C-alpha cells in the first residue's frame, strides 16, 4: 500500500528524462583530447555538444614569427600520424609563392613519401576502429609494419614521427640504398599483412553488424559541412585533391579513387582500406619511375634555387656567393616575395590547405591552415543523434579525429 513516506524526487526530475554524460577530454576512446557532452535517453543519444581547444598551441601566431623553413616543424605537428604529407604540402606552398620548379625525380620521391604517410595514417585509423569494436589483435599486428615505415623515414630524415622531412626545393639528401632496400622489403611484405588484416575484419559478422548502418551521413549534408577526404568519399562524392588539382606530378600516376555509398562506418573503413591498396600501387609505380633515372640524373634531389636551398658545404667554404646565400638562409634574412597563395594537398583526412600571405618581409604576414578535422568534427552531433552510445564511440574513431589538427 502506498503511503506518503515514499521517496520524494527532486524538483523537475520527473520531467527530465535524459541523462547528461560527459565523454570527457580524458577518455580511452577519444583519441586525442576533445570533449563531448551527450544527452542520453537510456542508451540513445538525443543531443551532443562538442568542446575542443584542449590542445590549442597557437600555430598560426607562432608562424608569424618564423622564417619559412622554420615553420616546417610546426606543420609536422598538425596531423602527426602522417607528418610527411603536411611537410610536403607546406614546401609546395612555399615553392608556389617563390615560383620554384622542381625536377621530376624530386616529385616522384615526394610521392613515395606522401603515400607511405597516407598508409601509416590509415593503418592507425582502421586498427583503432577495430580496437573500439573490441578487436585488439589487428592493431598490434599492424603496428609492426608502421615500425617499418618509421624505419624508412629514419633512413631519409633521421626522425620517426615528426619528420621535418624535405626542404623547400627538394630533399636534404639523396635517398640511400638502405632506404630503397627497406622500401622494397615493405612493398614485398605489406600486401600480405594487409590481406590478413582484411581477413580479420572485412567479412567478420560482428564487425559488420557494429559498423554497417551506424554513423552515416548523406552526400549533400557532408558537402555542406565541408567534409573532404575519405569521410566524404565514403558518402559517395569522389573529390580527391590529387586528381582535381594535381601537385607533385600526381598526374603521371595511374590510380583509382575509391568511393562508398552511405557514408557509414563500414564504408569509411572500406574506403580507407582500398586507399591503402591504391597507395601501394602508386608507390610501386613511383619507385619504378625513380629507378629509370640513371647516371647524373639519379643524383638530383633538389631544385636549383640557391637563394632558398642551402648550398653544398664545399662551395660554402670556397665560393663567395655560396657563402652569402648560406648566411642569409641560416639567419632567416632571405626576403619572401609579397603575395598571397592558397595551396592544398590531400592529407590523410582530407584537403589540408595552406593560406599564406606575405608582405615581403622575412616571415609570413599571415599563415592559416585549413584543417580538415576541425571542419568535419562539427557534423558529429548531427551524425550521432538517434544512435546508441556504442555506435557513437565507433563513429568517433572512424572519423579519424586527430586532436593536433583539430585545435592547431
Amino acid at each position: 500500500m502506498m503511503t506518503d513516506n515514499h521517496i520524494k524526487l527532486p524538483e523537475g526530475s520527473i520531467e527530465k528524462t535524459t541523462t547528461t554524460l560527459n565523454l570527457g577530454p580524458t577518455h580511452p576512446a577519444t583519441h586525442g583530447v576533445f570533449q563531448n557532452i551527450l544527452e542520453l535517453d537510456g542508451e540513445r543519444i538525443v543531443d551532443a555538444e562538442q568542446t575542443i581547444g584542449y590542445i590549442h598551441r597557437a600555430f598560426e601566431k607562432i608562424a608569424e614569427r618564423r622564417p619559412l623553413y622554420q615553420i616546417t616543424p610546426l606543420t609536422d605537428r598538425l596531423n602527426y600520424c602522417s607528418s610527411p604529407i603536411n611537410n610536403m604540402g607546406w614546401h609546395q606552398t612555399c615553392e608556389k609563392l617563390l615560383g620554384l620548379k622542381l625536377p621530376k625525380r624530386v616529385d616522384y620521391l615526394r610521392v613515395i613519401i606522401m603515400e607511405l604517410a597516407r598508409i601509416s595514417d590509415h593503418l592507425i585509423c582502421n586498427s583503432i576502429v577495430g580496437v573500439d569494436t573490441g578487436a585488439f589483435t589487428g592493431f598490434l599486428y599492424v603496428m609492426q609494419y608502421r615500425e617499418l615505415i618509421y624505419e624508412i623515414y629514419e633512413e631519409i630524415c633521421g626522425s620517426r614521427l615528426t619528420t621535418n622531412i624535405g626542404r623547400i626545393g627538394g630533399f636534404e639528401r639523396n635517398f640511400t640504398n638502405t632506404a630503397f632496400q627497406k622500401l622494397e622489403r615493405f612493398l614485398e611484405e605489406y600486401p600480405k599483412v594487409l590481406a590478413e588484416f582484411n581477413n580479420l575484419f572485412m567479412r567478420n559478422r560482428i564487425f559488420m553488424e557494429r559498423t554497417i548502418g551506424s554513423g552515416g551521413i548523406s552526400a549533400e549534408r557532408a558537402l555542406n559541412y565541408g567534409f573532404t577526404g575519405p569521410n566524404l568519399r565514403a558518402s559517395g562524392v569522389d573529390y580527391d585533391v590529387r586528381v582535381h588539382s594535381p601537385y607533385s606530378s600526381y598526374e603521371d600516376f595511374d590510380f583509382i579513387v575509391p568511393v562508398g555509398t552511405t557514408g557509414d562506418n563500414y564504408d569509411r573503413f572500406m574506403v580507407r582500406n582500398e586507399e591503402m591498396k591504391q597507395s601501394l600501387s602508386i608507390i610501386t609505380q613511383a619507385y619504378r619511375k625513380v629507378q629509370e633515372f640513371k647516371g647524373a640524373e639519379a643524383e638530383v634531389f633538389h631544385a636549383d634555387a640557391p637563394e632558398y636551398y642551402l648550398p653544398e658545404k664545399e662551395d660554402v667554404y670556397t665560393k663567395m656567393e655560396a657563402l652569402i646565400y648560406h648566411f642569409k638562409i641560416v639567419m632567416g634574412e632571405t626576403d619572401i616575395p609579397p603575395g598571397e597563395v592558397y595551396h592544398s594537398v590531400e592529407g590523410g583526412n582530407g584537403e589540408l590547405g595552406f593560406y599564406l600571405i606575405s608582405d615581403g618581409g622575412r616571415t609570413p604576414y599571415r599563415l592559416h591552415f585549413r584543417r580538415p578535422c576541425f571542419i568535419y568534427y562539427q557534423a558529429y552531433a548531427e551524425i550521432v543523434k538517434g544512435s546508441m552510445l556504442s555506435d557513437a564511440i565507433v563513429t568517433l574513431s572512424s572519423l579519424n579525429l586527430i586532436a593536433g589538427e583539430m585545435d592547431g
Partner: protein
Amino acid sequence: MEVGELPEGHVGDGFFTTKLSGLVGMARKNSIWPLPFATSCCGIEFMATMGAHYDLGRFGAERIGFSPRQCDLLMVMGTIAKKMGPVLRQVYLQMAEPRWVLSVGACACSGGIFDSYSVLQGIDQIIPVDVYVPGCPPRPEAILDGVLKIQELIGQESLRRRNGEKYKELMESYGIQ
C-alpha cells in the same frame, strides 16, 4: 639460482631476509599500472612503445588503465594547454597514494617548441613530477628508459616517504592537500 634482481638482504637455506621497504618496492616496481595521459604526438610514440616491437609489457606495466583511481603511474605525454591544465590536475588529485608522474616529451617537461600564450610551459607548474623524458618525440627506447628510472625510484622508496615532512611541503607548494 639467480631469478631476478633481489633487494639487499641475507640469503639463507630456504629463506631470505630483507627490509620490508625492499620487498614492497620490488613488488611495486614490477607491477606498475600506468595511466597514459596522451594528448598529442608523444601519444603515438607511446602506442609504438606499447606495441610488440618495443613492448612496455615486459617490464610489468602490462595493464594500462584509464581510471585514475586504479593506477599508479601518470604518464603525461604531449602538450598540455592551459585549457587542459585543470583537467590534468583533477586526474592527478584523483589518484591514490603512492603515485608517480612521468613527464614524456619536451612539451610536457617545459612547453617544448610552443612558447605561446596558450601552452602551459611544463606540467611541473601544476603537479609534482618524478621523472622527465626529453625528446620531441622521445624514441620508444627513451620512454622505456624513463619507465626504468621510475622503477628504480619505486624500488628504493622509503615506506614512510608519503607521510614525511618534505613530502607534505612539496604538496603544499602545489596547493594539494
